[in-house]
């Protein structure tokens, strides 16, 4: 049960951070909804999310690898 909660928390944090980053990087004020660029914004979010997930994986590997070489004090 602890592990389940743990996985849910990780997924939730990942969604929150990706939303924050991709909103900031893809959309600009005044955020008008009827914009003709709606499809483009959605594509940008899609691509941003994919890159965010790959970054998360890459960084996990790097960080865990480093922890194995040299444990935290």
């Amino acid at each position: 049960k602890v592990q389940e909660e743990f996985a849910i928390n990780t997924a939730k944090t990942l969604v929150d951070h990706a939303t924050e980053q991709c909103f900031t990087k893809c959309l600009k004020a005044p955020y008008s909804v009827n914009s003709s660029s709606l499809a483009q914004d959605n594509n940008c979010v899609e691509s941003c999310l994919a890159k965010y997930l790959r970054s998360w994986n890459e960084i996990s590997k790097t960080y865990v690898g480093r922890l194995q070489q040299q444990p935290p004090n």
Partner: protein
Amino acid sequence: AQVNNIIQVEDQKHQIQQEIHNFTKLCFNNCININSSNILNADLTTNENQCLTDCVGRYLDVNLQIVKTLQNSK
């Protein structure tokens, strides 16, 4: 049991309030222009108001899009 109910409702209210605080920080920062030329003007302009509403709406859209993409990719 009733006490637990009250706590649960308050907890949910707390989360919603927290979201409102976060949105206000983000959208105020991006939509509201504070500078020396508009000081003493305490009202929001029509554009500022619209920007705030759209900021929240599109943030929630992006959030939903991301949740759906992740659910479909499983």
